[in-house]
Each structure stands twice: as C-alpha cells, then as structure tokens.
C-alpha cells in the first residue's frame, strides 16, 4: 500500500481524482459546495507528497494557505448570496494584491525597480486569471473544462520549468476538474461552480503558475498565454448543445488553448525564447 501511495501517478492522478469525485458526489445537492472537491483533491495530493505545514511561512506555503482559503471564501459568498456586480472585480484585484504578499520574500531580494516591476506583473497576471475564471462561475461545464485544461497547462509548464512539485499540484487541480466534469457528464446536467469553484480554480492556477515563474524557470510569455485557457472557455460556444456533448467540446477547446502556453514553455526550454 505504501509503495502504491508513493507512486506519483497515484499521488497526483488517481488519488485526487477519486477523492474529488467522492466529495463532489457527496456535496452535489448543495450546488456550488460540490466544487470544494477541487480543494479536497489538492489536499489529498499534498498529504501524500510534501505534507501540509505553514512554518516557516515560505512563498510555497503561502500559496498553499491562500489556495486553501480561497474556496472557503467563495463558499461564504455563495451561501450568503452576495451578487454585487463589482464583486468579481474586487476579488480579482484582491487576489492580485495578495500575490505581492505571497511572493514578498522573493520580490524583496530583487535589485532596484526589478522587484516592483515583477510584483506588478505577477499581480496583474493573478488578477486577470482570477477575473477570467470568475466569468465562468455560472457555467459548470465551462468551469470544469477550464479547470481541467488550466491544471494540465500549469502542471506541464511547471515541469518544463524545473518544478515537478508544481506539476503535481497542477495535475491534482486538473484531476479535480476532471472529476467535476465527469459528474456533470454522468448526471447530464450542469453544476455551476459559483464563487466556490471559480475562486478555487482561478486562485490555484494563478498562484501555481506565478510560483513557477517566481521560484523556478517559467518565462513571461508562457505565463501570459495561460490566460488564453479561461478566455477560450468563457467564449459563448456550443450554447445550444446537449450538456454531455457541450462538456466534451468545451474540454477540447480549453485543451487546445492550453497548448499555447505549453508550447511556449517548451520553446523557452529548448533555448528558442529569450529569457
């Protein structure tokens, strides 16, 4: 059993998928609460790999902490029924600002204006990613497709940029997205993620990617191209199709968009792109 749980394919693939599917199935009657499955999948992977610890509070651990708290904030918003038009903008900007705190220890070591410029760029990326994913909050199929594709894209970009830990985080997120898509596919009815799901996906994928940029070797162009995934998933595509067909088509489109950042990361890795 121990050998099985030491297998990376189990740690970042099978186990988070199974846990996410179980949690989503158990919570589906409470609508967006089912999207806590994404957090459950990530927690499963973390428990099986590095464990969960917050001391000292390094950037990686701050990422873990924020990724854990984001869906809980989303759940509170969903349960309270807050629907103010400015809320997605406020949440996106807050996530962008929070990224400065998350990576403060790295940014503070940069010389001159470099730290400010990098922090500004990363903050903008995080805000845009969270904003784009929040647009999908009422469309469970688009949200699931974006989660699956973003997880794969951030994970593969990470392994191409010397971070296998983030590859596993990305794959765990993707497995959660796959579990939620599978549940919707099997039920034949969409299950909107609400703020719970959108903040889970948006914050996790943004911070995993930003972490790979800050702490490993991911380049700017690949980071920016990751935004294409939620942008494509948010296009008004296949609106009249049956949910099962639409979920497959949306996943294919989001997956195709994920090839752009992966291709750029690969191009940078093999020496073609400027750093």
């Amino acid at each position, binding site marked *: 059993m121990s050998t099985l749980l030491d297998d990376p394919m189990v740690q970042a693939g099978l186990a988070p998928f199974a846990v996410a599917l179980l949690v989503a199935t158990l919570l589906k009657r409470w609508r967006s609460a089912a999207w806590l499955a994404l957090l459950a999948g990530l927690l499963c992977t973390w428990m099986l790999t590095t464990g969960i*610890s917050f001391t000292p509070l390094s950037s990686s651990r701050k990422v873990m902490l924020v990724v854990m708290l984001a869906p809980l904030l989303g759940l509170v918003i969903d349960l309270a029924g807050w629907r103010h038009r400015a809320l997605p903008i406020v949440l996106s900007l807050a996530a962008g600002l929070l990224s400065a705190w998350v990576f403060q220890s790295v940014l503070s070591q940069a010389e001159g204006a470099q730290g400010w410029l990098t922090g500004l760029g990363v903050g903008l990326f995080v805000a845009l990613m969270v904003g784009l994913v929040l647009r999908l909050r009422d469309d469970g199929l688009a949200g699931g497709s974006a989660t699956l594709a973003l997880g794969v894209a951030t994970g593969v970009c990470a392994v191409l940029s010397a971070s296998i830990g983030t590859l596993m985080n990305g794959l765990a997120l993707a497995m959660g997205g796959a579990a939620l898509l599978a549940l919707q596919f099997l039920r034949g009815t969409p299950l909107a993620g609400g703020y719970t799901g959108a903040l889970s996906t948006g914050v996790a994928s943004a911070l995993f990617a930003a972490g790979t940029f800050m702490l490993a070797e991911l380049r700017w162009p690949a980071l920016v191209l990751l935004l294409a995934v939620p942008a494509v998933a948010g296009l008004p595509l296949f609106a009249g199709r049956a949910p099962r067909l639409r979920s497959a088509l949306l996943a294919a489109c989001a997956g195709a968009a994920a090839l752009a950042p992966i291709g750029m990361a690969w191009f940078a890795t093999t020496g073609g792109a400027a750093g």
Partner: protein
Amino acid sequence: MKTRMTLVAALIAAPLMCQAAPETYPLDPTHSYPSFQVEHWGLSMMNGRFDKMSGSFTFDRAAKTGSTELSIDAASLTTGDSVKGNRPQSRDDHLKSADFFNVKEFPAMTFKSTKVNFSGDLPSSVEGTLTLLGVSKPVTLTFERFKCGQNPFNKKDRCGGNAVGKIKRSDFGMKYAIPAVGDEIALNIEFEGDKQ
C-alpha cells in the same frame, strides 16, 4: 634579583601567552566546499556540492574554545548535471527549484557554531545551528581530519580539514520526493584557511 626573576618568568610565559591567543582563519574560497551525498531510488548514493562558501573559523588551543560561521551560496549548487540540452530541465535546475533548495527565496544556508569540542589541542567536533530553507536546527559536525601547517607559498600558518555530519532534509521542510530521493543527507565540508 627580583627584576631578573620577573624577566625570566616573562620570557618563559611569552610563548604560552602567544599560544593562548585565539587564532582566526578566514576560509580559502578555492579550497573550501560543502558537499553532500543522498540516496537515489534506493540505489546509488548521488553526490553534489556548493561551489561558493564564505566564513571563518577561530580556535584557541590553550583555552580549548573556538567558533565558526559559514555562509553557503545555495545557487552555487552543482551535481555535474547543469546543461539541460533538449531535456525540460537539468538536475541542478530541479535541485535549485522550490522542490528542493528553493534558491530564489532562500539564497543562503548558514552554519553558526555554539560549541567546539577538542581532542588534544585541535578541534574534534563542532556543535552548531544549521539554517536551511528558513528552518534552524542543531547539527554536530565531526572533524575527520583537522591539521595545521604552513602555506608553502606565503609561509603563513594554515589549517584545514574535513568536517562530516548527517541531517534529515525533512527536518528543514524539504520533503519533496521522499523516499525516492533519500531523506538522510550526508554532509562533508572540506575547508582550509590561512591564519589572519
């Protein structure tokens, strides 16, 4: 007569007083490297080292006291696999990432002694605090050799040796890929320095 006795006593005591003075040796950067060894997939023991280390060591042979402070440049890590070629990453790139040494966030590792133990008039081990990834833990390094002589080029007194010890990387929060990449790390610090 009394003056003569005092003079004789002073002459006898002079070399002893000189010996009792603490001696400080800044590290020679070209002959001072920390290296490490870790088990890989339960098979081989892989070696790596850090090319840049700074600091000094001080000891007092008569008083049998001493101290040392070392700072290791984490980004100077090398395991002999730094060119990635067409691969996604080299082993050195991966070891420098947040999965392991997280060099962008924690650019330096430090060791600060708390006590130096002696065997004869030379240090035999040093107890201290190793700070890695922002976590400080007590570590004891044993001197496999500690010898002093003369630098043949500048004729200065010179000491050097090898200090060995073991740590568990998980104690410092470096938990990625355990047990595929072993938890126990064998340390070997080679050092030399001319007397200041």
